[in-house]
């Protein structure tokens, strides 16, 4: 998998987490996986179209999502409720927007599909069969996994 496609997602995640939560996120070791993926409990799936096809999955435990949404909204939530889902979707939108900005400025042309949020420990099986790169980020609120699978359109 081309690293120049992947690095912007890592850079964008780091940047947005730091911007929104005012704390650095610690990036763990990158690993290669094959689909299907088992969710930690709350996943956001965004598809990519344009010069590449593929998808990016952001995966976290529901508790992590709730803690992040509490900070973002400066409110107290006890469970994954619509406002939590909406806040996490917007957080991921910001990450993807930043990544796309970096990629577009490098001359790649990408478009995003709207984020889809799923809850539960389901197995995620997207239609595009690709090898995926998983990047873990450790935050003060829990772990966030980014699962990137992209390939150039020929």
């Amino acid at each position: 998998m081309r690293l120049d496609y992947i690095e912007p997602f890592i850079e964008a995640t780091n940047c947005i987490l730091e911007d929104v939560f005012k704390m650095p996120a610690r990036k763990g070791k990158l690993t290669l996986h094959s689909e299907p993926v088992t969710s930690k409990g709350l996943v956001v799936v965004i598809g990519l179209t344009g010069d590449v096809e593929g998808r990016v999955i952001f995966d976290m435990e529901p508790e992590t999502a709730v803690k992040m949404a509490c900070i973002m909204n400066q409110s107290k939530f006890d469970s994954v409720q619509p406002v939590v889902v909406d806040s996490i979707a917007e957080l991921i939108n910001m990450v993807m927007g930043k990544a796309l900005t970096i990629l577009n400025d490098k001359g790649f042309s990408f478009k995003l599909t709207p984020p889809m949020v799923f809850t539960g420990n389901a197995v995620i099986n997207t239609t595009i069969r690709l090898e995926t790169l998983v990047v873990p980020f450790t935050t003060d609120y829990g772990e966030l996994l980014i699962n990137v699978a992209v390939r150039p359109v020929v």
Partner: protein
Amino acid sequence: MQQKGIRRGMETPPQYKFLIVDDSVFARKNMGKVVEMIGGVVAGEATTGREAIDQYFKLKPDVVVMDVSMPEMEGLEALSKIKEQDKDARVIIVSSLGYEELVKKALSLGAKHFIAKPFQPDKAAEIIRFVLKEIK
């Protein structure tokens, strides 16, 4: 006798009306806080570009603050359609997509400014105040 809201020699600043357009509740709430910070009022909200056009001509806000990526109709298409019918419309584009080509396109379609997400509330407020200056 002193009238409510008016002190001798000093008028209450006008309360500008805003239309906030974003498909995210969180993002609308966040921008709403910025609007309140500058003493404005959120006259309406919309979640798609199509709704934004309807709300714009119904509410006639002083400023529209609009996201780019939305279902049904994207922000730039809505901006273009609003400007076609009202060349004086003041629209500020807010987006997590900040690449040069998109920013240039937004400005060429008539956007007054571009705010990149995530934004610091005081920075966003500064941009909105700058856009409001042209009303005075």
